[in-house]
């Protein structure tokens, strides 16, 4: 199993002190060094082709890599100088739009764009969310069966185009395939498409991550090492902004090792199913990026120890 670190850890959207720094290139140049110094030599990137264009330096799109880093090769060189020799994968979540056909077309277009960039970056995996947040899906929810059939078919087509890149599906706790709902869907999907097992999402949806991994078996495509203490007693997942529960403010996603996900059990289950792909630390919603890197390193050292 190989370990990567997701740059989703950087808050690019929400207010926090010193947030302004993440807009400039110097922040990212140093971040790569800090990630490398934390013993992570591979990264995962969120994929966000439209966000703010190149006004900000979030290296999540081809346009920013071109404008700010002199293209993909320039970007990879900056990473290599920071001792990061691999972009393991990229991920994105689709947005709800119109009819089933429109949604699936948008989904396919987006994943094709991801596969193109992933190919250029030399990624091993691409992760796409099964759906956006439940509450944004409107009329699409009435056609869930039709939507899932169309998505399954689309994923099969996309797997044809993926080549050596492993296409994986993530089931967020706020999505239509939350928790164990994923297994029936995956049974219908082309076997080349893998599970993205996101530990915290699985746990919040009420499933045991280790058990989930055992059920996914050899179809685990990538593991996202996330942590949480959140228990969704009020069905926050159905409402708007489920990552910020309105029934009580809380940090839903904790830095790795700070929540209650049983990492030892997860690693044992991964070993049991013979998983040898990427396990990517994702400290999303972290309050301090550098502390999060060290916390994750501490947690991994403890598990490995």
């Amino acid at each position, binding site marked *: 199993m190989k370990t990567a670190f997701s740059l989703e850890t950087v808050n690019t959207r929400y207010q926090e002190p010193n947030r302004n720094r993440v807009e400039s290139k110097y922040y990212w140049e140093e971040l790569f060094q800090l990630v490398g110094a934390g013993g992570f030599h591979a990264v995962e990137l969120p994929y966000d082709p439209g966000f703010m264009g190149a*006004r900000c330096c979030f290296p999540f799109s081809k346009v920013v890599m071109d404008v700010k880093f002199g293209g993909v090769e320039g970007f990879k060189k900056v990473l290599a100088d920071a001792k990061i020799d691999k972009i393991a994968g990229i991920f994105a979540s689709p947005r709800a739009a119109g009819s089933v056909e429109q949604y699936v077309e948008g989904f396919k277009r987006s994943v094709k764009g991801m596969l193109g960039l992933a190919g250029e970056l030399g990624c091993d995996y691409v992760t796409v969310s099964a759906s956006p947040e439940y509450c944004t899906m409107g009329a699409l929810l009435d056609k869930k069966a039709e939507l899932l059939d169309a998505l399954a078919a689309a994923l099969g087509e996309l797997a044809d185009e993926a080549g050596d890149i492993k296409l994986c599906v993530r089931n967020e706790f706020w999505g239509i395939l939350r928790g164990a709902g994923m297994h029936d869907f995956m049974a219908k999907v082309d076997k080349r498409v893998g599970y993205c097992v996101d530990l915290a999402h699985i746990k919040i949806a009420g499933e045991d991550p280790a058990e989930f991994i055992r059920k996914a078996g050899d179809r685990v495509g990538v593991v996202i090492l996330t942590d949480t203490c959140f228990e969704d007693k009020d069905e926050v997942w159905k409402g708007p902004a489920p990552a910020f529960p309105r029934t009580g*403010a809380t940090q839903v996603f904790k830095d790795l090792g700070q929540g209650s996900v049983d990492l030892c059990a997860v690693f044992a289950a991964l070993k049991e199913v013979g998983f040898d792909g990427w396990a990517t630390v994702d400290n999303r919603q972290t309050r301090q990026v550098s502390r999060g890197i060290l916390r994750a390193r501490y947690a991994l050292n403890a598990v490995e120890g």
Partner: protein
Amino acid sequence: MEKNIRYSYMSHWKDIPYREIPNFRDFYYEDKTNYAYYQSWDQIFKYHAGCGYEGMEVAPWDLFAIRTLFPDLREFRAFAEERGVEISGMFHGMNGGRFKENIPRNVEQTKAAVENVVLLGGKHLNVCPGENYADGGLDEEGILNTIECLNEMGRVCEDNGVKLGVHNEFFCIMNKPNHKRIIEATDPRYVHYCLDTAQVSIIGEDLCKFYDDYHERIVTFHLKDTADPKLPDEIRYAPFPEIQDDGHRWFWELGFGVLDFEGLFTLMKKHGFKGWATVETDGTPDLLASMAYTGYYVRNVLGKIYC
């Protein structure tokens, strides 16, 4: 004594994920950092009011996250007003108005934006001509189309009781070679001007002279300081100069840069300016500290000249 200037503060809060945090103590204890102090509109509005700001100007990219919490923008307005803050107006971008074929689309977008401003109770729509200068300057036809587009957009605003204020950006297409002509050639009944003190100075204008010359058109301000007036064209016209790779800041809190705000306020007094002035601190790492500092500055330094 009735005040002539009402101070608003530009929202650079980005997305705020909570309306209120009734479990604030527990939320604080989760991480025990100041993070928890910046996560709800309840806090943000109270900070505005506590620092002496009566208003907040929003930006269109704020609306998605705001609507997630307040599906009806009137609810957001009421929430702000309950905490002593009015929404003074909204920022807006003109998209491709230099091309004739884009004018109808801009008019439609203005209608939608003005509808939001009205729901929010705002009085201003401050319009930045969108594209970067590096995308290509304005030719004669582009200037004429821009003027026409602004007039059409301004008419929509005026019909709804909102003032359109043209807002320069130092790196945008409406720039030193043409911006005065555009101001002068637009219809003064519909098209007004929002004087962003730093942007205009970075472009190369003398702030006080510019205000003196165009005071009749200036209906509101974005008050911010800069340490880089008269920035060379090659920097301003380069691709994407707004966010510098090394973190260099173009914009500073009032008094942290080099602009002559005392001179400006003396002229505002001379011309009897009345209305909203938005203090803006793009690029600050600490919006609350900047808000408190500028609140002091406008009351205790500039307020002695004109308030």
